């Protein structure tokens, strides 16, 4: 139980940190921020890598999780980069 309290602490602090960091984002960056954040949520890939694989079902689930998280990661970062490159100053 101890470990969950510790990790819960990390969770709360990170959410608070996130809210503070992003609270004043200009509207120009709303879409790139969303798409960039979306790429970060592909961090589920790390979770997918450490899954157990005792049964065939688990192996299949781990494989699918890795694949879909990878689509999220690669697609998310590339599309964000492509979008940001379009924004130009006068």
């Amino acid at each position, binding site marked *: 139980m101890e470990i969950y309290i510790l990790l819960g602490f990390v969770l709360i602090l*990170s*959410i608070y940190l996130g809210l503070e960091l992003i*609270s004043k984002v200009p509207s120009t960056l*709303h*879409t790139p921020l969303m798409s960039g954040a979306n790429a970060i949520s*592909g961090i589920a890939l*790390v979770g*997918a890598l450490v899954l157990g694989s005792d049964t065939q079902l688990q192996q299949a689930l781990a494989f699918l999780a890795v694949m879909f998280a990878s689509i999220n990661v690669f697609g998310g970062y590339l599309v964000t980069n492509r979008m940001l490159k379009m*924004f130009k100053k006068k």
Partner: protein
Amino acid sequence: MSFFENISSIQNIIYIFSSILFISGIKMLGKEDTAVRGNFLSALAMFIAVSVTFINVINPILVLVGIGIGAIIGSLIALKVKMTSIPEMVALFNGFGGLATFFIAWSEFNSIPSNNFQYLLVMITTYIGGVTFSGSVIAYGKLSETLKVEKSSIITKLFTTLFYISIIYLLYSIFITKIFSPGFDFYTILLILTLLGGVGFVIPIGGGDMPVVISLLNSFSGIAAAFAGLLLLNNVLIVAGSLVGASGLILTIIMAKAMNRSIGNILFVGYASSSSTSKSEETGEVKPINVSDAYLILENASSVLVIPGYGMAVAQAQHVVRELGELLEANGTEVRYGIHPVAGRMPGHMNVLLAEANVPYDVLVEPEDVNPSMDTVDVAVVIGANDVVNPSATEEPGSPIYGMPIIEVHNARTVFVLKRSMSSGFAGVQNPLFFKENTRMLFGDAKESIGGLVTEFKE
């Protein structure tokens, strides 16, 4: 044994490093000058976290195959997609992230959770991940206009009911099944109900409310990853997931504020029933104008404000709009673009479209910056926007959109409204702007009308 413990502590130290990069990355993503570098830093953080986890993966070849397939599909979509389809692409990628956490939770359920708290986490992660996935797929369908369901149809009602049932079933799964283990396979039912529930969550939400839903689903995918992190006792998942959850939440709040509505009202009530009495039956003459007369007025204007809306995206008019803007500037006119936060179908939709057409972002202004000086604007050109310029929001208590911050174009000297027909906007509210003394309606396809103006200028 000590070797493995060493690896695990090295991994955890590197996770801390990776978390720092994620935090700096998302911070830099919030400022124009540093955004590209911010995105790169966060990609680097991802690469480091994945690489260091890969060291002790059980089945490296299978994993590499999975990553390879994902990389190819993801990159192809990201590089091939047209910039105008960005909203639905973001929704789709978001859904895939949710699906990954859904599978993670499912797999963890099968490795038999060791304590009650883990059991609870499995259920919650399953639910949030699943709802993110199926909800995002529906959002994708709505944004790409491949899915059209009436809000009042029987299908919508059925799925909305399923959404509520899924929540009740989730609570049942969390609290009851551990104590009285049911004789049936309750978890499979949870998996199915979760996916159906996600459909029911998004399906009743109208097109104009899409920016809010997309931001919220974005937030969910982060929260799902953070919960998966708790489940797997993995720090970097928690930190990165929470950051995404927070950024999605902020965008959701910004969008809801821009509509002057609560998030609950947007998700569960919608415009139709929020106010049934809007008797602003506007009776008056609309004053149409043709392209050549519009040209004469524009040619003599010294300050022009362009207000784009979803109609510009539909007509694909952003390139001719930019061309017209350049011609006006060459003519000595000051041109600015008034961007309302909820114009379009996703947060920042108009900004992306205009950026694609090479409009520099420093001539884009937000409502609160441009409203005080609106009376100095000679011509406000409204292109396919409706509710975000509806003066009922400031003048008519009782209107469903009363109190919503708008771009007050009715205070400009002249207003051109480019519109296909006299239909009302997503809120279903008639727009008194069309009947104002200083308003001229330029009917027709926005791209053709502006193209006509461009030709006039060139001659």
